[in-house]
């Protein structure tokens, strides 16, 4: 029971981080709390959040996927070309298929050739970025299909479609992670791949699937960005990989694997989105925005870790200036 409460508290804690930033902003700017602005934040966050959702699976598995931004760019361009030539459904299918194949390649590289995922996905990122430029000759591809534009620009029940997509993806994949056998295997493999293998888990398959999920969600994010801009930009996704990883880690998922949640990632992505939004609202000097953003991230993550040890201090009654003593395993992991 206590651990249940604890884990609920630790998820709530991530939400608190968001609330804190939110409260500061709603005091500072009258616009912040307006429904349109909040929907804007949701809209602006949706792309990075989708990338971060897939990345969460990969990171819980103690791997990393640097290719998500480039995968987004590549699949966007393929989607837009297919849309131009063959219509809506083939375009969606092509985009998702491209995302899945990219994920499959990443997964195979990481599992079958034992390449570290950092370098394997860095290489696929480079290849994809180049291919995108090659097939487009560097030019954006216009999207005029009205239905497709709706993915980015329409509203449903007053809420922009990208926000719906984000909510559905997080609901679905959050459920898969928390409640299914596959999700459990993801945690186990990420925590200790060897123990997982000895328990009969096909760890390679799990990893490949996670990379595929990451690729497919990158393609989905690509739909949103393309539909919002009514154009597929060859360079659309560049740099988004770091934002996605940052969202995952701010959301409490450990790069060492075995721990994390999609709710945390959503909050992490929203924290980043809210910071961006707030700085725009408050007219922070563009040069200083990076400074502020960096400091807020530091503060948020610092408080996150600190509240943890404060809570530990209180409940564990360690007292007497003793440092909180996590189990050896936990402390070893925490250092990563």
């Amino acid at each position, binding site marked *: 029971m206590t651990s249940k409460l604890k884990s609920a508290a630790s998820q709530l804690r991530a939400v608190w981080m968001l609330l804190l930033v939110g409260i500061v902003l709603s005091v500072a700017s009258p616009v912040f709390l307006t429904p349109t602005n909040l929907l804007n934040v949701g809209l602006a966050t949706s792309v990075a959040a989708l990338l971060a959702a897939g990345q969460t699976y990969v990171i819980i598995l103690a791997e990393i996927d640097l290719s998500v931004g480039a995968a987004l760019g590549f699949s966007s361009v393929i989607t837009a070309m297919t849309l131009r030539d063959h219509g809506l459904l083939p375009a969606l299918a092509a985009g998702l298929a491209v995302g899945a194949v990219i994920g499959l390649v990443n997964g195979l590289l990481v599992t079958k050739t034992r390449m570290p995922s950092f370098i394997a996905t860095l290489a696929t990122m480079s290849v994809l970025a180049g291919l995108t430029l090659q097939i487009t000759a560097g030019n954006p591809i216009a999207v005029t299909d009205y239905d497709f534009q709706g993915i980015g620009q329409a509203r449903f029940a007053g809420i922009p479609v990208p926000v719906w997509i984000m909510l559905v993806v997080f609901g679905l994949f959050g459920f898969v992670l928390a409640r299914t056998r596959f999700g*459990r295997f993801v945690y186990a493999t990420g925590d200790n791949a060897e123990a997982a293998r000895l328990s009969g888990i096909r760890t390679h398959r799990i990893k490949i699937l996670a990379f595929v999920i990451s690729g497919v969600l990158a393609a989905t994010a690509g739909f949103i960005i393309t539909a919002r801009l009514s154009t597929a930009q060859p360079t659309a996704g560049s740099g988004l990989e770091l934002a996605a990883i940052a969202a995952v880690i701010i959301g409490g998922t450990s790069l060492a694997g075995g721990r994390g949640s999609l709710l945390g990632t959503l909050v992490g992505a929203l924290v980043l989105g809210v910071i961006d939004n707030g700085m725009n609202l408050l007219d922070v000097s563009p040069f200083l925005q990076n400074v502020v953003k960096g400091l807020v991230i530091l503060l948020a993550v610092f408080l996150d870790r600190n509240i943890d040890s404060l809570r530990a201090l209180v409940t564990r009654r360690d007292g007497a200036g003793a440092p909180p003593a996590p*189990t050896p395993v936990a402390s070893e992991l925490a250092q990563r």
Partner: protein
Amino acid sequence: MHLQLVDVHKSFGDNSVLRGVSFEVSPGEVVALVGENGAGKSTLTRVISGAHQPDAGRLLIDGVPAAFKDPQSAMARGIEVIYQEFQQNLFPHLTVAENMYVLDRERRFGNLFVSKQRMAEAAGTALRRLGMEIDVHRPVGDLGVAERQMVEIAKAMTHDLSLLILDEPTAALDERESEQLFAQVRGLRAAGVSVIYISHRLDEVFQLADRIVVLRDGRVTLDAPRGELDPDRVVTAMVGDTVDDFYPKERNATNQVVLEVRGARHADFHDVDLRVHAGEVLGIGGVVGCGRSSLLRALFGLRPLAGGSVSVAGTPVRVRDVRDAIDSRIAYLSPDRQAEGLCMSLSVEANVSLASLRDYSPAGNVVRRAKERAATGQVISDLRVRTASPAAAVGSLSGGNQQKALFAKWVMTRPRVLLMDEPTRGVDVGAKTEIYRIINKLTADGVAVVLVSSDLPELVAMSDRVVVMREGRLVAELAGDRLDEQSILKHALVGAV
């Protein structure tokens, strides 16, 4: 060194682990510290070494209060610890020599620049003193468990010692190596070094200790010279009750062959034929490196057989990987629970159900949590895994309880064949007895058990039959009157001594 502990307290959260521990160790004295899993022995060790800070209480060294804020400070006073877990002692990617002299407090191999040559020579010499021949340039991660343990011991001995704490040093050692270690400990005692020796093997404790201190639920329940004690009294102090039967062996063997192995071949063993019957416990004896662990791993699909055949309950099976093994209802208890056994940051419950999760997630892959909780809860209480909650991280359990959790994982798969490699390593007497009862229950249900253990009394008592391996071949089969420790040793060592 004269070490006094006065009323030491230590808690982790709500868990009061040490509740006022007081005892002392005189110079040149070997004090054995015994107690159930989770009694607080390792915690006490870490308090003495400066790895943990006590919540209350004092440490006195030669009558002067000492408080170690970190391990360095304790080491500076000549306190050296061999921690229970490999993870806390060694560096898998560093060589044996680098592991042994990682700190080199005396700066024997250079103040700033290190002479790797001299370091390697010194390491080789130190290991030979312990009767070990190990290539000191090998990364420690490549060594077997026993070799690692010897490196840890050698590492501790490289320093000028005044107090040595050994936390279950023999759990991974066989008789011969243990004897080497005891000789070293006696040598240190003669040189005036104090020793705290933690073990679950009472026979060792009575061989080695000058005094025995029993810890129970964080308190000292017995502290007396060895001469005044007998095993029964110690056990009573440990578990609060008398244990009338250490080895509650039940004979459930039938005539029905469950596991049959013919002509199994592999890099580490040759021409192995085995037949294990329903309800039978087949023990495998042998010394370190004889190939018995490799045999179990091969049967479980970890390193597939190069030749030979296996059948389970009369059906031939091809075990190419772990999944094949599990599908054939073969279970395997790894001797290395840290690396191969448990997912330390996952909950006890999730670990216990990991290999049988299929049974609790039929349609749509969704895990039926209530069903899972009920089943794991049952096994957790059957095996008396001591945990704050089934949702606690398994890494927060004491070593013995982790071992029981690992056992529970395989019980949950309802195996036909259970391969066990050192199943009671690091497990206290009470829990051992519990594990033996579980084995009884499984054999009563017709499970065929293969038991590899370096604990000879256990092997003899718990097996219906023992085969002995030497250099990768089966050299003897012992049962009934012919089954005793001497015979196993004789067959295991012939030609090797």
